[in-house]
Each structure stands twice: as structure tokens, then as C-alpha cells.
């Protein structure tokens, strides 16, 4: 009895070991380093100098604009993604013919096989002067500016993050017991009431998973706004690149990074709470 338990523990350790080691070396240790940096000072020649001060956190308002822009971009971008993704996921899970479903799902995922950078460059070209505006000019609609607008940034974000939103929503809709929809109709609910009262509520775990996934990634996003927004608006991502690579103010960059992580955690917990409460699920799976 004792021996078998020992063996099982050993097996568990063996299975979890590699992943745990990976996480310790590449996540936990760097995180500790960043946390230590964030209460330090910038060395005169750049980098980190040991200290114990909250000066870096006190200095956060200096980057308030970048914070503010990120805090707008992340939820708005995630919301735009959600609005586009939900109908797609709904169609895939509940309407699409069974034999097409896998193919259609594959089509959703395939763009992921190309780097986001390349795809965003492609959008630069499509939206730029020689892309759609040139086509519009050809049919007589002149002076349409698409690139370097907020609309272009939103488009790029929705395009880039759509699969991450579609998949979790698809999974939760796919799992939905169809008889619940029949029961709702049987009890007199119109299709709209059934959607709002049953389908939407029970797919909320998927919605929240997708929403928090996209939102957290958007908190660090700076590539798409830079390329499609013309780089005129700065985000936390830009600030981090600038602080770590250009002005080499590691402690301040670390303070910003830690704050960002805390915000992400808060978002995750809130999303989890909401979906657990509304959908009555006892647990919420991240994907």
C-alpha cells in the first residue's frame, strides 16, 4: 500500500517535473527578478541598482496616457472581437451542418499558422494608399483614408485575435444540451427569449474565457496599433519596449510590468466570478 503510493507520487513528479522546471526558470524567477527590480533604482548608466523604494510606483502617473490608452484599447478591442466572434461560434456550434463543421473550424484556425507580424503587414498594404483606397478611387470614391485610423487598429485587432475568441465560445455552445433549448421553447419562450435566457447565459463561461484571454493579450499589445495606427498613440507595450531597450530604466519598466500583471489578475478573477454566478457552473475552464 505504502509502496504503491510512493510509486504513484514519483510518477506524478516525473510527469510534472519538466513543466514545473520550465515554469520556475522562465516564469517564476523572472517574475521575482522583475518584482525586485521594481522596488530598486535606475543605475546612472542605465539598468538596475539595488534599493528599497516605492518611487517607481509613485512615478506611474508619468505614463498615465499609455495606461489610459491601454485600458481603453484592451476592453474595446476584446468587445469588438466578441461581437464578431459570437455569431460565428453560434453558427459553427448550432447551425452548421455536421460534416462541414470541422472544415469550417479549421478555416478559423489556419491563419494562426502565419505569423501575426506578417499578417499585420499585409493589412498595412491592403488598407494603405495602394490597397482598398486605390480600388475605391478607381470607382470614383476619392480621398478615403483607412490606414493610421482607430478603425484600422480595431480591424487589425479583431482580425488577429478572433480565433482566440471563437474557440472557447464554440466549445461552450457545442457542449450546450440542445434539449434545454427545446424545453425553453416548450415552456413558451420565443427564440429570442430562449437565446437570452438560456443559450447566452450558459455560454457565458466561454465568452468570459475568450474575453479575458483577448483582453489580457491586448494589455501588452503594441504591434498592431503601431503598424496600423501610425504609432501616434502610445500603449503600455510601447512604454515597456522604450523603458527596457531605449532609456534602460529597468526599475520603472518593472513597476509598470508588475502593475500590468496585477490588472490582468483582477480581470481574470472578475471574469471568472461573473460567469460562475450567471451560468451556475461550478467551475470555469480556461478553454
Amino acid at each position: 500500500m505504502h509502496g504503491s503510493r510512493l510509486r504513484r507520487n514519483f510518477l506524478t513528479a516525473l510527469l510534472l517535473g519538466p513543466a514545473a522546471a520550465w515554469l520556475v526558470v522562465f516564469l517564476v524567477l523572472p517574475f521575482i527578478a522583475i518584482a525586485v527590480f521594481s522596488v530598486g533604482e535606475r543605475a546612472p548608466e542605465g539598468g538596475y541598482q539595488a534599493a528599497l523604494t516605492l518611487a517607481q510606483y509613485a512615478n506611474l502617473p508619468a505614463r498615465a496616457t499609455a495606461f489610459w490608452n491601454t485600458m481603453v484599447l484592451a476592453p474595446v478591442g476584446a468587445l469588438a472581437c466578441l461581437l464578431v466572434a459570437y455569431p460565428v461560434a453560434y453558427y459553427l456550434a448550432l447551425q452548421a451542418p455536421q460534416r462541414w463543421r470541422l472544415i469550417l473550424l479549421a478555416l478559423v484556425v489556419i491563419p494562426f499558422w502565419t505569423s501575426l507580424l506578417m499578417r499585420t503587414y499585409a493589412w498595412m498594404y491592403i488598407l494603405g494608399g495602394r490597397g482598398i483606397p486605390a480600388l475605391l478611387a478607381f470607382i470614383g470614391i476619392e480621398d478615403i483614408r483607412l490606414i493610421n485610423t482607430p478603425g484600422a487598429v480595431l480591424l487589425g485587432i479583431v482580425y488577429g485575435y478572433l480565433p482566440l475568441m471563437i474557440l472557447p465560445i464554440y466549445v461552450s455552445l457545442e457542449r450546450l444540451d440542445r434539449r434545454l433549448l427545446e424545453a425553453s421553447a416548450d415552456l413558451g419562450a420565443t427564440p429570442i427569449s430562449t437565446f437570452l435566457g438560456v443559450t447566452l447565459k450558459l455560454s457565458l463561461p466561454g465568452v468570459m474565457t475568450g474575453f479575458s484571454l483577448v483582453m489580457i493579450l491586448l494589455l501588452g499589445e503594441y504591434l498592431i496599433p503601431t503598424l496600423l495606427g501610425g504609432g501616434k498613440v502610445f500603449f503600455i507595450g510601447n512604454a515597456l519596449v522604450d523603458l527596457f531597450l531605449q532609456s534602460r530604466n529597468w526599475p520603472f519598466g518593472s513597476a509598470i510590468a508588475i502593475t500590468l500583471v496585477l490588472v490582468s489578475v483582477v480581470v481574470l478573477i472578475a471574469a471568472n466570478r461573473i460567469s460562475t454566478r450567471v451560468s451556475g457552473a461550478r467551475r470555469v475552464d480556461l478553454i
Partner: protein
Amino acid sequence: MTAVPDIEFRGVTKRYGAVTAVSGIDLAVPPSAFVALLGPSGCGKTTCLRMIGGFEQPSEGQVFIRGQDMAGTPPYRRPVNMVFQQYALFPHLDVEDNVAYGLRQARPRLSSREIASRAGEALEMVRLAGYGRRKIHELSGGQQQRVALARALVNKPAVLLLDEPLAALDKKLRTDMQIELQNLQREIGITFVLVTHDQEEALSMSDFVCVMNGGRIVQLGQPSEIYDEPVDLFVADFVGKTNLLSGTVAGHSGELVEVALADGTVIAARKRMSLQRGEAVSVSLRPESLSLGAPESGRFKGIVRNRIFLGSTAEYAIEVKGIGTLLAKADHLIGHGNLFKPGEPVAIGFASRTPLAFPETKNNGTNQRVDKHVEIIS
């Protein structure tokens, strides 16, 4: 029947592609009846129920609810409610909100006070008062079953549809719920349509049993009629236990036919349709219509192979030479009194009810009123 039937099928056929699930069903369910649709899986009983609920549309024919043609009427506008298989309760709502779900859909809107009081009454009716704030997953199977009942009945439907409602319950609970459902039906006085593959359930609960096979109604009648006077071999075999003995028609004597069995014995049997001399038939003998006696008496002589003691009765498997194994049910307190032991020789006689003879080949030209419609599609 002068009253408008609660449910009426007129020439209803349902096809899924090349498969015909239901063919040419005609059925009228009188008000305040408890009707069971009984049949093996795939016989079309669930499809019929779903056509009443509005989840399927007939390919041909019409379904009427209280005289109204339901063609094109979606489920949410039909005056019926369903208790689903495995209940289909909303997991994100508590017990009371599940029960109140239908009331909240009513237009014009009901006041929240009325919703609460009616939901409360419905829970009381199924003996779940005080469970309103429980989560669905905190309830036992039997309690979930009762929530599903309350959720359907609270809307005061014209007809309650029950799709294998007791299939997920254990035997004891199932028996309790059978009685409870019967009582509820009498109390509320609305029509219940029950779909089941369990013949015992159908016989014990309903006023009428509609036996279905291969998408058609084979027999419609009161439970005792179905059991005692099956119209064909399928019904005789499917409803209740029976012994089927092969033989040929040796002659006629008045209303009865004489059937020569495989071992040469000739027995007299009733018939449901005219039989030709020399025709191959199956004779149905209910286990409880056989009597067991001392080896020197009786019609057949056999040896007890197996005995199942059931309390007030005992079931015997008796091997009869040239015929096979017969199942006999004997009340061990009456008559012979003794329990026979495996290996003991025994004689079998007919205690009650003359056996019934059916032609071997399946014949659908029987004498029920539904049959003229059954012929339309084959």
C-alpha cells in the same frame, strides 16, 4: 365520443430522408385520459410525442390539439408542456426559477407576486415546498423528476407530454412515481400522454395503451384488453410474458381452432382471425394461465428446470419434451400448495383462459379501427 379530442392525429406520417419513422397514424385521445404510447425503441412513439410538442413537423397529415390544427405552430405557442427524458432542467437556475420559467414567458406579463405564488403551489403539489432556492445539481434524481413535473404543470397545459419520464429512476422510486403520476392526473384532470418502452409501466398507469411497432399503431385499448386480447403475435409477445408454441391448424370446433403442436398434442385455442387448416400458427399461453399438478394429470408432462420464488407466486421454467421450455407462474398458496423443486417431474394444465392462436406470418389485417389507416402506407 362527442367531446373534441384533446389530441388528434389524422393520417400522420413522418419521414427522415428515406426512413419512415411514423406512417399513417390516426389517433384520437379523449379529454382527461391517461394514454401510453408503448413500443420498442424505434417504433415511432417519441416522434409522435415530439410532433404534439411541435419539435417535429409531420411530413403528411395533421395534428390537432383541442380541435386546432397545429400545422406551422411553433412549440412556444402550443398549449402543451413536456416532461423531457432526463428532465432537461436549466442548470443555471434554481428550483423555483426553473418552475417559474414558463410563467415568466406569459404575455401579458404576470405580476411577480402571482408568479411566486403559482410556482410555490406547483412545488407544493409535487411535495417540494421549501426546495425553491436549491440548485438543480443538489437534487436527487427523483426530486429533479418532480421539479420537471412542476415546471410543466405550472403552466396549466391542455395536455402534459411525458417522454420516458421514469427511465432514469431506480425501481422503488419508479413504482412510487407511477402512483404519484396517476394521482396527479386524476387530481388535475388534464390529458397525460406518456411515451414508454416499459410495458409494465404502460399497463399499470394508463387508461388507454397505444401499442406501436414499425411506425404504426398496432393496437389501441384499455390495459386489460391489450393484455388479455392482443390483436397479433407482436402485441402478445411484447406486452407481458408469454409462452409461444408453434403448431399447425388441425381443424375447427365452433369458435375455436384445434392446433397440433410439435409433440403431437392437440389443443383448442381462440383465434383473432380466420385460420386455414394446415396453416402454421403460434399459440400464446400466459404463464399465469398454466396450472401445475402431480405428474399423472395435466396436458403436458415436463421437468422443472428452474424456479424463481417471488413471494406470493413462483415462476417455473419447465422443460417439456418436443415443445421446449415453458414458463409457468403459480400461486403457491392456492391449489397444489407445494413448491416444485428443480428436477422434479410435473404436469401442466390450463387453469384459466383459453390460449390464443395467431398466424405465424405477421399479418396487419387485424380488426382494430386504426387498421384501415394502417393500410395506407406499408
